[in-house]
């Protein structure tokens, strides 16, 4: 098979980025409402989203700013709620060819999100940075514009519509984790255990006090580490998991 050109990878990135951008548009709309409560005007909220592109991180930030937190506190909460991106970037660093130039590393890093990471690891073989640029080119504006509109329009959308739109991102998550889980018993088991533990940590009295962001970090590290020790992942031929994403 011929290697794809950068232009083709970019186009592919746009194609895979469109559903993400649509989901972002809906979700960031509700984020805009939080931004407005924190005293942000539409353009300021737009820039937060353009420079962060992080749902939980931004939400936590807005909430703290609304409560009059210090810069240090805001930095800390941003760090904690976004710490999973640290893990994802580590993981992505392995997906890039080792000779990828610095400039591409700096640019790819700009938009490591749950969804873009999800489609990036789903690419067969090494990751071409232009794939990410394509996805970013639609996802970033979707996120930022949605936030802007959220501040502008507040609660105009009917609750019914907001409720329906709010599962879109989760549907996308499922589309990323389920196909590989179907093919690998280990991943299937991990998915089930992760969900059960996530639920339990939310209801067990002492554990439930841990913030959602922190819970995500802890569970991710603990479960992945145990899995890595018990079931070292065998390197497979390139196209393991992903015809499902296109």
């Amino acid at each position, binding site marked *: 098979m011929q290697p794809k050109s950068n232009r083709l990878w970019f186009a592919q990135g746009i194609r895979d980025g469109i559903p993400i951008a649509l989901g972002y548009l809906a979700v960031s709309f509700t984020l805009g409402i939080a931004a407005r409560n924190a005293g942000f005007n539409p353009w300021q909220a737009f820039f937060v989203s353009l420079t962060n592109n992080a749902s939980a991180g931004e939400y936590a930030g807005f909430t703290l700013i609304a409560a009059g937190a210090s810069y240090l506190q805001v930095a800390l909460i941003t760090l904690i709620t976004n710490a999973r991106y640290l893990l994802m970037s580590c993981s992505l660093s392995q997906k890039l060819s080792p000779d990828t130039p610095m400039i591409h590393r700096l640019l*790819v890093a700009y938009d490591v999100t749950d969804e873009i990471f999800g*489609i990036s690891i789903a690419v067969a073989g090494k990751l071409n940075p232009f794939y990410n640029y394509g996805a970013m080119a639609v996802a970033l504006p979707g996120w930022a514009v949605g936030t802007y509109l959220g501040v502008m329009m507040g609660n105009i959308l009917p609750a019914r519509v907001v*409720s329906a739109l709010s*599962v*879109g991102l989760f549907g996308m998550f499922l589309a990323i984790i389920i196909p590989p889980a179907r093919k690998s018993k280990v991943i299937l088991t991990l998915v089930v255990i992760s969900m059960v533990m996530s639920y339990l940590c939310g209801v067990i009295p002492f554990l439930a006090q841990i913030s959602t962001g922190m819970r995500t970090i802890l569970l991710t590290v603990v479960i992945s580490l145990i899995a890595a020790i018990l079931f070292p992942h065998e390197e497979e031929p390139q196209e393991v998991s992903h015809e499902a994403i296109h």
Partner: protein
Amino acid sequence: MKQSINLYILVMALTTYLIRVLPLTLIRREIKNKTLRSFLYYVPYVTLSVMTFPAMLEATGSIYSGAAAMAVGIVLAWIGVGLFPVAVSSCIVVFLLELFLI
């Protein structure tokens, strides 16, 4: 007030970018350690699972519509339906169900 909000924006942007850029620029070579490689391979599946459940059930107006959307999403993803159709189907399920539930 305006100025301090702009500083908040800067703080958030810098913190987030550092988290993302440091691993991608500092880790230049392939990691050889098998446990570490396996760990990084499993991370996304665990993170996305943890974030999806039970949050997906709590995201909607009714826990039942959320659960139905999740069930439909899992089935569609299992049979190989793509990213966007799965996401849209989940939304439609919620919308239709909530016409009756709420």
